């Protein structure tokens, strides 16, 4: 009975996510990124993402989507401009402060980035372990979240024993486990077939419904058109369109 299962999942998700109030605002102020070898990746980008929004970053490969995300999680620093992430000014965080900051953000990648030597359970648990959470809390939370993404019965499998869709669900569970205010997904469906793509986007929408800001970078026209949410379109490092209920349009 798929409907009752959906209901149960939603319930778990709700009890898991509705505990905090999301008030985190993301701001880009005149951000540019130049690479010495590849030239301009971003040019004077300013934008604001409000709490609870579901924002898609659209654009061709090389338009600057990944750069926005790398700057957002502090993997790279802007050449110019400032980036605010709630109380953090991301471009000013040093190596010692970055880990704590990253525990406020959940990140999902195209290539899943799971630890191959750890099981699905351990991969998700790892995000809590690095934050120094007590073992009992971990033992309680991890199965809940894996249940939520529909992998309750595959907790002991290693990533190599899971399908692409399942791996991405493990990655989403890991991104969700510490209840981040923001989930950032960089081409999360790039390696998946349409069926699994649909599943993953549904999962992200569910997460968003419960108050988490979602930033989704994708070049998948279908995905963006079906979402009917805010779309920021990038081209050659600049924002060329920002619409509340956007479509995937490239001129």
């Amino acid at each position, binding site marked *: 009975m798929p409907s009752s299962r959906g209901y149960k999942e939603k319930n778990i998700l709700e009890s898991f996510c509705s505990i905090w109030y999301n008030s985190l605002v993301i701001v880009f102020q005149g951000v540019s990124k130049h690479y010495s070898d590849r030239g301009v990746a971003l040019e004077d980008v300013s934008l604001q993402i409000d709490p609870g929004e579901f924002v898609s970053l659209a654009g061709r490969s090389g338009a600057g989507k990944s750069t926005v995300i790398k700057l957002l999680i502090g*993997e790279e620093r802007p050449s110019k401009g400032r980036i605010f992430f709630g109380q953090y000014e991301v471009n000013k965080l040093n190596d010692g402060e970055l*880990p704590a900051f*990253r525990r406020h953000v959940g990140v999902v990648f195209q290539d899943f980035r799971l630890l191959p030597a750890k099981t699905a359970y351990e991969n998700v648990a790892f995000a809590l372990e690095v934050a120094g959470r007590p073992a009992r809390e971990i033992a309680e939370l991890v199965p809940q979240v894996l249940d939520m993404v529909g992998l309750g019965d595959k907790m002991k499998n290693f990533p190599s024993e899971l399908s692409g869709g399942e791996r991405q669900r493990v990655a989403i569970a890991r991104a969700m486990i510490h209840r981040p205010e923001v989930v950032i997904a960089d081409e999360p469906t790039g390696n998946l077939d349409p069926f699994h793509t649909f599943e993953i986007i549904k999962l992200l929408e569910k997460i968003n419904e419960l108050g988490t800001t979602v930033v989704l970078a994708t070049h998948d026209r279908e995905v963006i058109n079906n979402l009917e949410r805010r779309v920021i379109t990038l081209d050659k490092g600049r924002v060329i369109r920002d619409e509340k209920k956007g479509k995937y349009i490239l001129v």
Partner: protein
Amino acid sequence: MFTIISRIFHFGAKNFWRNGWLSTATIAIMTLALMMFVGLIMFGVVTHAAANSIQDKIDISVYFNTNTSEDQILSIQQSLKGLSQVASVDYTSQDQALATFQKNHSSDQTISQAISALDTNPLEASLNVKAKDPSEYGAINSYLTSANLAPYIDTISYAQNQDVITRLATIVRDVNVGGWVVIVFLALVAGLVVFNTIRLAIYSNRDEIGIMRVVGASNSLVRGPYIVEGVFWGGIAAVVSLILVAPVFWFVSPYLGQFIPGLNIFQYFYTHIIQLFLYQLLFGVLIGMFSSFWAVQRYLKN
């Protein structure tokens, strides 16, 4: 804090088991390096024993005029003992010299008769001086030839053997210094080989290090488990290498014993096994730790 430390150990131990092949390969290389290391220690023991056995054969003897009284000789012996270069001074009295001489020539009738025909003991009392270092015989010799001692002394063997003594002294010094150079050089090579092996092992983990950081692991939590792994590798390699090297020494020992008398290398190995094990453990664990530390370091920079 405690949770983090216990997790570091837990992750380290788990990685160690799950990366079974990598661990095995790394331990194999480290074992070879440590076998070389213990081989070098033993090489040091052998060269030292060889140098000692040469050094033992070097000495100078001072022969006193027969009219020098025993008291004077003994006071000279005391003054010699007071010199910083001198290791030991043995006194042979005229009577002892005669007794030894007669014993050595007891089969020779002519000499025995000639000796007993004499009224006085023709043999001279002597002091046998050993230096702490063979290169110091020159200094001892010049002390003995100083003017205030000259009236008592008949001959000093140094003058006759000077060439041989200086040559032996050079050999002893060269063997010792050369041994050290070889040891330091080869230990360096072993260390570099291990360092590179661990660097490669961690290079193959660079993606994981990136993932850990994205998930929010602090630098110490990323690095910690690799250091624990490095310690495991070093510790196990120390045990394995000692087990492998024991039969080699047992086999080689009698041959070396013929070459350098009084040297039983297996016995040395056996009686110093705990000490050797600790050296190996220290070398293995330290190099494992530092290699891991530096190898991970470069992936922790933004």
